[in-house]
């Protein structure tokens, strides 16, 4: 069952949009593309100051006790403005893993910092195209971990990571303190994601979940993050659709606005359809947190949001013609972000398989 946003939730959407539109712009984001290891500090300061880092965490652990619906609304606005750092989602994923599967001591150690934003978390499960590998690239022996995890978003800044590792004959979900871990920056097409290869050599790790339950737990964390990311993608797609619409209304060719040509107006109308389907799936998935069909709902949101953002990026630039491919206009910020968000938390190839397994009555 889906929901209608209540007044409080609508206020979160309005206020976060107002703040982000005032503080985040392409002038600050464009230079970040040409440096490695930098993120947009004002964005993250805003997230901390506004309490967005604490929003979806329990009050007992320093959070505000709200949930995916509210965090999703923030992520949607962050997507519209192009968020300046990946931590809203990465720290949320790490915090949920600790909240759901950690000991009281682990919660006490990490959650208050993650909630206030002074601590940054990362999720590092993937091995190449496999977002939830059966043979992870890291191995846990006792309370020590070895191996290298490649392409971890937020990896250059994170204080703590949740990893999926090979344990003694079975998978393990583990918490790794990243102090002293080797981090190699990955120069990327979207550098403010702070992507790093993390090298572990006899690094201290704490076990959270052991056995098949570790994979189930990891999938649940990915699904929670994916719903947040899907909102962010939908926000980005929505912004691009509006940019395309506005440009089609003002740019003239052959004596009329280009938006009067059906080839252009239908293209934008199709974007509207993709955005609304993604939005509807996002709202539904956020409202299904804790329900038996949550994974299914999260996968649907993820797939439709990825399609919406990718398509909107392609078509918005196309509708702009030559100006659309310039550095200065910044549409490539969205194009780059559409792709980095499409890969983080598992690509469409991964979520299609997860979804079909759910629909066909098989487990991941």
């Amino acid at each position, binding site marked *: *069952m*889906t*929901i*209608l946003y209540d007044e409080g939730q609508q206020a979160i959407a309005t206020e976060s949009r107002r703040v982000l539109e005032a503080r985040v712009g392409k002038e600050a984001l464009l230079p970040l593309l040409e440096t490695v290891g930098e993120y947009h500090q004002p964005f993250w300061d805003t997230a901390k100051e506004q309490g967005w880092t604490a929003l979806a965490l329990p009050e007992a652990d320093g959070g505000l006790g709200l949930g995916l619906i509210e965090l999703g609304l923030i992520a949607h606005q962050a997507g519209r403005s192009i968020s300046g750092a990946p931590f809203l989602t990465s720290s949320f994923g790490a915090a949920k893993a600790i909240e759901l599967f950690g000991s009281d001591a682990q919660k006490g150690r990490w959650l208050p910092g993650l909630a206030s934003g002074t601590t940054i978390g990362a999720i590092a499960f993937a091995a190449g195209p496999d977002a939830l590998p059966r043979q992870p690239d890291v191995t846990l022996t006792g309370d020590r971990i070895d191996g290298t995890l490649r392409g971890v978003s937020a990896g250059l800044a994170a204080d703590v990571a949740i990893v999926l590792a090979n344990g003694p004959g079975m998978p393990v979900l583990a918490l790794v303190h990243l102090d002293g871990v080797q981090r190699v920056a990955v120069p990327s097409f979207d550098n403010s994601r702070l992507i790093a290869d993390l090298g572990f050599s006899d690094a201290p790790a704490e076990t959270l979940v052991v056995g098949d339950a570790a994979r189930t737990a990891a999938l649940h964390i990915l699904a929670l993050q994916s719903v947040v990311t899907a909102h962010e993608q939908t926000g980005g797609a929505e912004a691009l659709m509006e940019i395309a*619409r506005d440009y*089609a*209304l003002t740019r003239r060719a052959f004596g*009329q*606005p280009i*938006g*009067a040509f*059906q080839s252009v*107006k*239908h293209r*934008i*109308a*199709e974007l*509207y*359809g993709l955005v*609304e*389907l*993604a939005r*509807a*799936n996002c*709202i*539904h998935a956020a409202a299904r947190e804790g329900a038996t069909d949550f994974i*299914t*709902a999260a*996968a*649907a*949101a993820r*797939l*439709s949001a990825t*399609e919406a953002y990718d398509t909107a990026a392609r078509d918005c630039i196309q509708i702009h013609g030559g100006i659309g491919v310039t550095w200065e206009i910044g549409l490539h910020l969205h194009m780059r972000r559409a792709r980095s968000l499409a890969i983080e938390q598992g690509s469409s190839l991964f*979520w*299609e*398989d997860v*979804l*079909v397994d759910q*629909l*066909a009555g098989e487990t991941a």
Partner: protein
Amino acid sequence: MSDLDAYRAKAAAWLASMAPTYGRDARKGLSEADDLALGRRYQKAKFDAGYAGINWPTEYGGQGLGHLEKVTFDAEEMKHGFPSFYFGISLGMPVPVLMQFGSDKDFVKERVLKALQGEEIWCQLFSEPSGGSDLAGLRTKAEPDGNGWKINGQKVWTSWAHYSDYGVIVVRTDPNVPKHKGLTYFWVDMKAPGVTVRPIKLAGGDSHVNEVFFDDVKITDDHRMSPVGGGFAVAIATLMIERYVATDSAGFGPHLDLFVQLAKDIALNGRPAIEDGRIRQQIARNHAMRSGLDSINVRARLMMQAGMMPGPEGSLNKLVAVRSRQKLSELALDLQGSGGFLFDEHASPKEDWASSWINAPTGRIAGGSDETLLNTIAEKVLGLPQDHRPDKGIPFNQIPA
């Protein structure tokens, strides 16, 4: 258990108890006349059990419940293959519009009660041979005739007109003003002298749509449901109702579960087809699209329930769902390969892939073509410019041919 869950459980139990008498198996091999007769009895059974007019006012014989109960019941009802489609248009648009715009309340009440009990069927006379997308360009005319009107012209694509007792119709009453302004909305007796109904056989072999001819059909002025010249607004109100009645995320084709089952049952390259990446991708994509539409539709009903106007995203359903159904049906036939040639022209498009496939083009054209819907979204929702329209603002009778 929420109230709605309890309602669903009760409805499901009642529907299951009706299935042996009226459901899929009971209908097998029936002629259309016998199937319609069975449908009328089923509609009466629904009325008696309190499942007809679920969200209609009690003063008209409805149940006075909400949109959520209605959609809950419909979802359960769909599972059994009941003969309810004869009444889908009738109870979907014309009768609700009659309740809203009919002037003689006693007459309206009598018609609504008979329609709810399956005794009378209504049709909707909008499209014409000269144009379906361009509704306001219609040519059927009504001229003043004594105290009433005289109708001449032709309608087309009228679903179930051959079984209908009454219809709602938009006609031109003034050709001297721009096209939208010269239309008036009436109801007509489909058995009146001068009304001729001719079925049209469609590509799939089915003939539920008709041509309807009006030759000097005389009606009194109390048939009028809009101000003279104000018919276009009522026609749009009718189509707005249609937008929210016609919400099936399966695009009026088979449920995705049937495709999943097919993919499990059929072997492809020596493995169940459900393990093939190409098949998996289509299942996943179709599910994501359908779940989005379902969420849009549920939210629209929640908004109506809360007294709010639903958002314009409701107009996406037919556009997105039917063309997806068309492609998925092609894939379902591909999947069956040489085993997929079998064709039963009486099979239901909701349950049979060949029937769904061959009837899909109708769905992409009827009730607003894909192109018309895209134009509507672009212009009405996104505020993009109107197309070049040479007929704009000039009197109907001066529009260049």
